[in-house]
């Protein structure tokens, strides 16, 4: 989690000093891609905490989700129906779900550590 936060901060700093920007026409696509990557990264952290992380699943999910999201946005743009709402809602929900699971796992870990310290202190006192 901390690594990800540091990485994002470093990335933002790098991006601010980069002379390159994209065309505003594609801002919708970039936003959707960012959402897809955020979802993937949170999913990755979640699975890593549950000791189920598989880089193949992670990469295939990331690339596949991103492609589908971009395609849906493109299709909606052409048809005149804002289908990208579907991607926003789905990725948004998944981000919250992943975060909830991560939170629970981290809280459990914290509690365990607390218990261990408590036990150690107790032993020491005895």
């Amino acid at each position, binding site marked *: 989690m901390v*690594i*990800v*936060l*540091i*990485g*994002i*901060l*470093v*990335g*933002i*700093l*790098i*991006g*601010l000093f*980069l002379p*390159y*920007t*994209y065309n*505003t026409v594609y*801002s*919708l696509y*970039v*936003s959707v*891609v*960012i959402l897809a*990557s*955020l979802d993937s*990264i949170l999913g*990755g*952290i979640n699975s*890593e905490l549950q000791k189920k*992380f598989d*880089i193949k699943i992670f990469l295939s999910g990331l690339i596949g989700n991103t492609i589908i999201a971009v395609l849906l946005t493109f299709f909606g743009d052409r048809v005149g129906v*804002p289908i990208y709402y579907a991607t926003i809602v789905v990725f948004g929900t998944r981000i919250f779900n992943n975060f909830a699971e991560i939170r629970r796992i981290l809280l459990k870990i914290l509690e365990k550590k607390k218990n261990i310290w408590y036990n150690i202190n107790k032993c020491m006192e005895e």
Partner: protein
Amino acid sequence: MNRKIRIFFLIFSIALGIMISLVLKNKVELMGPYTYEKIRNYKEELEIVENQIKTNDVIIKGIEKEIELHTDDVDISSLREKLRKEIFDLKVISANSDLIGNGIKITISDSRDRDIGSTKYGIVHDLDILVIINDLITFGADAISINDVRILPDSKIDCQGPTIRINDVVKSTPFVIKAIGDEEKLFTGVSDKDSYVNLLKTVYEMEVSVEKKKDIYIPGRIDRRV
């Protein structure tokens, strides 16, 4: 966490951060839902602005021409031509010159129906002529005359029993109204189903005829100074 995975996450999140910062840098406006109504409104606005641009272009061209005329190395002959045209336009407006041009001719006389003709409804009144004249002006007539009396911006039309006094000249039926202008526009405007001329014809059964004519002659004002 495995070291490899950590590095992987770090690189990936850096890339994500770069993307986020690019979005922040671009300052994109909020993407609200675009309904069809919004799009239609924008379209209308755009059309209005485009029309305005077109009219502005025309105005700019006119002003540029005028500037050309007023520059130092002015062509005297073109300036003379322009002034002559201006004088002609002013003469047309002030009715100081005779005019010949395409237009329409309206002839109105009292109703021949005995029942209506004997009452006040069958007689051509000053008001009827006034309304027709105003209609003609609305439809873009450049010059108008009634029985060869030129209508001026300050003309008056009075009732004089069975006759009408126009610019202090007494005229009687049949009244021949001539108008020079866009003949199609004038004709369709006057002979429209809901027009006042048609009302006179159908309701009061007056003798009314409207015809398009070429080379109509309209005299200038009587007291003109040449």
